């Protein structure tokens, strides 16, 4: 993806040449950071999209698998968003458990959002009983994604959710919860029987059963791609618009570019909320379909 955008910096030369040249510049920028020369290269803007290792930890291997748990920028952002979630709601939960009414700026700020997620999304969709059972997971998921998205909008920070590995692991969690709760609630044999709806013509079974099974894997894949593409897309649009300044080398364009970038930034703010909402809502729908198959 980087190559596509970077190729725009070539002034109509052969695309391959431009890509090579720009790749070289990117490698240089990665090595020398912003320190070399006084010319600011467009590729340096990509520090926002890149993941850099902050703290190298020794990697260890199990069999042929090498595991490297180094703290990179995005790992730090994930820890940060998880920590904010814990801090904001841990304090609130302790207060309420102690019997005190939630008061103060933090409580008022978080309570409205918390209430929306809990009452409207989870209990509204799943019903009182199942909703209470799954509320802790989905609430944490919502606020983790929301804070990860919002942290990405702060300059010099990174968007953890614009890494496909992060979104994929979140979707895998949803996948396992869906399958495990489906087997636990329905039992393994009725759950397997569900893949063959009653009254289906016999010649359709070899076609329909693989499609049904494939559907289980496509759902979390769609969740992965949706969150990843939305969070990456916004940044790429902003970088492309800023790239126009470097392409035309004209300051006259600056007000237009800055205005448009500001507009996209506000759109990103909206998208951060909507995508957290959509990810959690679709997860709730999948789990709900698994535990209440008659609905």
């Amino acid at each position: 993806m980087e190559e596509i955008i970077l190729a725009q910096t070539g002034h109509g030369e052969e695309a391959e040449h431009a890509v090579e040249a720009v790749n070289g510049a990117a490698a240089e920028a990665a090595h020398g950071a912003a320190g070399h020369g006084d010319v600011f290269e467009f590729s340096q803007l990509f520090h926002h999209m890149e993941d850099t290792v902050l703290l190298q930890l020794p990697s260890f291997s199990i069999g042929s698998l090498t595991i490297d748990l180094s703290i990179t920028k995005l790992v730090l952002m994930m820890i940060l968003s998880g920590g904010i979630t814990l801090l904001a709601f841990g304090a609130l939960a302790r207060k309420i458990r102690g019997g005190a009414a939630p008061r103060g700026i933090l409580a008022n700020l978080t309570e409205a959002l918390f209430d929306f997620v809990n009452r409207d999304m989870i209990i509204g969709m799943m019903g009182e009983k199942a909703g209470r059972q799954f509320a802790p997971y989905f609430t944490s998921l919502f606020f983790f994604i929301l804070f990860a998205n919002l942290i990405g909008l702060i300059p010099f920070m990174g968007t953890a959710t614009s890494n496909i590995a992060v979104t994929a692991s979140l979707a895998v969690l949803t996948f396992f919860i869906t399958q495990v709760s489906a087997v636990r609630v329905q039992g393994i044999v009725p759950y397997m029987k569900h893949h063959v709806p009653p009254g289906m013509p016999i010649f359709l079974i070899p076609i329909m059963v693989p499609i049904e099974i494939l559907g289980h894997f496509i759902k979390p894949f769609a969740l992965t791609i949706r969150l990843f593409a939305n969070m990456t897309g916004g940044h790429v649009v902003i970088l492309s618009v800023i790239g126009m300044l470097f392409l035309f080398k004209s300051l006259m364009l600056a007000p237009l570019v800055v205005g448009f970038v500001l507009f996209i930034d506000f759109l990103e703010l909206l998208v951060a909320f909507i995508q957290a909402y959509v990810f959690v809502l679709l997860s709730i729908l999948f789990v709900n379909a698994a535990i209440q198959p008659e609905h």
Partner: protein
Amino acid sequence: MDLGFLGAGVGAGLAVIGAGIGIGRLAASALESMGRQPEAMGDLRANMIISAALIEGVAFFALVICIMLALKS
């Protein structure tokens, strides 16, 4: 020049046209329903966002294929 880039660009454009038509129609009818029945607004909004996300998901599948095409060529 490689035709792969052209294919990726045209494909991305077509995918976006499809998603645009889909979400446009969805929003139009959702807004009309909200206008006719404002008391059902919350319910309609949730369902509208779910449908929009599903349409968007299909468009993203197409875009991912285009990106893969562009990176391959």
